[in-house]
């Protein structure tokens, strides 16, 4: 029931490994997304790669290269719009996001050769993963891990205190862009597995869960990896036993785990507060209501 589906079906084994690799990659990049508030640009990148992927497939070259180009265009565009025209980063991201997505839809809708459904790019094909995909995913994980490790101090400072980062001699812009780059790499590598839309879920929910319980970046990443991996396993089981879409099941699981974790912390907080009230000195806080 819990092991047999995987033991009997190689495609499920491959999906599981791919999902776990995605989970680890997203845990690293996602921790920075959550701590630094990059969710919107993460979402924009996830959609912005669409015309790149579509064009690449049309031209018969690897979708990954197309995604890489797409994300470069996206980031360059955001940079130009927000700095040269002095519009807020939010607006710049929104503009590029929608523009790239529309372009992607146009390209896939009018192409004469069958390039692959829009929905397949957005939602991935986890059940069709092959060894080549796994190698790619592993490569991406290595790059993201190495970059994050080397840049750990500036990244930490950027998340915690931008002002301090600047005075510490780091170029904020450079490291901010580097951070965006590892998010982009994560999106580019993962679109073939869970799809671009759902990568966002894997980036945010597990790391958000981690952030509920931990303050140290490494701990958040660890929790995020665990949550992501468990969600992959559970999601695949759900897809198997209930005949539901795989990618979506996994991402929904990550969000549900977050919901459970959040509820748990709320209960924990409420219990702690009650306990605190009972032991409270009657005159410890002016105006406090003591029963």
């Amino acid at each position, binding site marked *: 029931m819990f092991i047999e*589906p995987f033991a*009997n*079906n*190689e*495609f*499920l084994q*491959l*999906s599981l490994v791919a999902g776990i690799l995605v989970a680890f990659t997203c845990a690293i990049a996602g921790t920075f997304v959550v701590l630094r508030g990059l969710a919107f640009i993460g979402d924009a990148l996830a959609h912005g790669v669409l*015309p*790149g992927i579509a*064009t690449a497939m*049309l*031209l018969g070259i690897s979708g990954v290269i197309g995604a890489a*180009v797409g994300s*470069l*265009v996206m980031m*360059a*565009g955001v*940079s*130009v719009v927000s*700095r*040269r025209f002095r519009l807020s980063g939010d607006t710049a991201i929104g503009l590029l996001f929608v523009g790239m997505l529309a*372009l992607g839809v*146009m*390209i896939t*809708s*009018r*192409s*004469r*050769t*069958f390039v692959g*459904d829009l*929905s*397949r790019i957005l*939602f991935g*094909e986890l*059940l*069709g*993963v*092959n060894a080549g*995909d796994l190698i790619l995913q592993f490569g991406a994980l290595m790059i993201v891990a190495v970059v994050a490790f080397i840049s750990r101090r500036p990244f930490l400072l950027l998340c915690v205190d931008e002002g301090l980062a600047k005075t510490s001699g780091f170029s904020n812009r450079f490291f901010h862009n580097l951070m965006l780059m590892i998010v982009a790499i994560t999106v580019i590598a993962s679109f073939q597995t869970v799809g671009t839309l759902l990568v966002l879920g894997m980036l945010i929910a597990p790391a958000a869960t981690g952030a509920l319980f931990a303050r140290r970046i490494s701990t958040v990443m660890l929790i995020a990896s665990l949550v992501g991996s468990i969600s992959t396993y559970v999601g*695949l089981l759900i*897809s*198997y*036993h*209930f*005949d*539901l*879409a*795989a990618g979506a099941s996994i991402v929904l699981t990550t969000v549900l785990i977050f919901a459970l974790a959040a509820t748990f912390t709320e209960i924990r907080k409420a219990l702690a507060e009650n306990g605190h009230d009972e032991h409270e000195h009657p005159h410890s806080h002016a105006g406090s209501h003591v029963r």
Partner: protein
Amino acid sequence: MTNKPLKKLATVFALITLASCSNSTETVTEPTSETTTDSVVADLPAIAVTYSIIGDLVSQLVGDIAAVSVIIPDGQDPHDFQPSAKDIETINNAALVVSNGLEFEEGLEEVLENIADSGGNIFMVGDHITVRKIEDGNEHNHGDGEDEDEDHAEEDGDDQKDDDHDHKHTGGDPHVWLSPATMLEMLPALTTALSQATGADLSTQATALTTQLQDLDSQVESIINGLDECNLVSGHDEMGYFADRYGCNVIGAIIPSFTTTSEATAGELAELKKQVEQNKVPAIFTGLGTSPDTANQLAKELGIKAVTLSTHYLDDAANYQEFILNLTNQIAEALG
């Protein structure tokens, strides 16, 4: 310094736009036997057909008497295709619209409904044939032991479709063109509709085409009868009419649904694997709308071949007859 990123941006956008532009002009200017470019023959009655397979049959009937336009270009998934404003205009201006019916062209549903509601001329193939329907477990008994799962899976596929589109679901298999016998069923009614729209007598052409289709039917029959076993596994549940007519068994499909807009699930794939093993199927067929990666992985795991079949558009075939024969020969070769 500030001009550089702008220039880079402009170049990349230009490249992307060029790439998409070159594809759209391809669609418009490349003439095939049954499509016409925009405003070529204003005097001939305009017939709009939704996809190329039926379009070819229509062309064989009307010949030069009418201007036949095919709306969905080859290579686009007809289950999915979204019309442009131009497409809708072509449909609205046609003397007759010929469509598949049975909710095949999901993206054209509303347009076609509007035509019907406003009293326009629309012919739906599905109205003039014996529809292959799903019923609870009995309607199509093919092969061993996959009935319940197939029906269950098909109903799930239908439920998914229902969630996407708020209309009543008829539950009929739309892949009517895959059996020449089914095409023969609707031919008289189609001829009448075309005669009315063009004002011409098409009985000679209809008789000729009828004979050809009957020959085709016999040819396919003999090819398939030459096989020891005809067990079909396809990308989505598309081979029903073919299987029913020529005595093949539909073992299952990667996407067990009448439409490609559903997704494969781990449970259904695992079940399909079991069925393929049980029935010792030598090859699975994949095509438009199915993930080639999923098909290849499945084939690899089972140690069998994955063969790409073109089932929803003419592709290289010159006409309907060639299309069906190519299909049949590919199937026979893979299963033989």
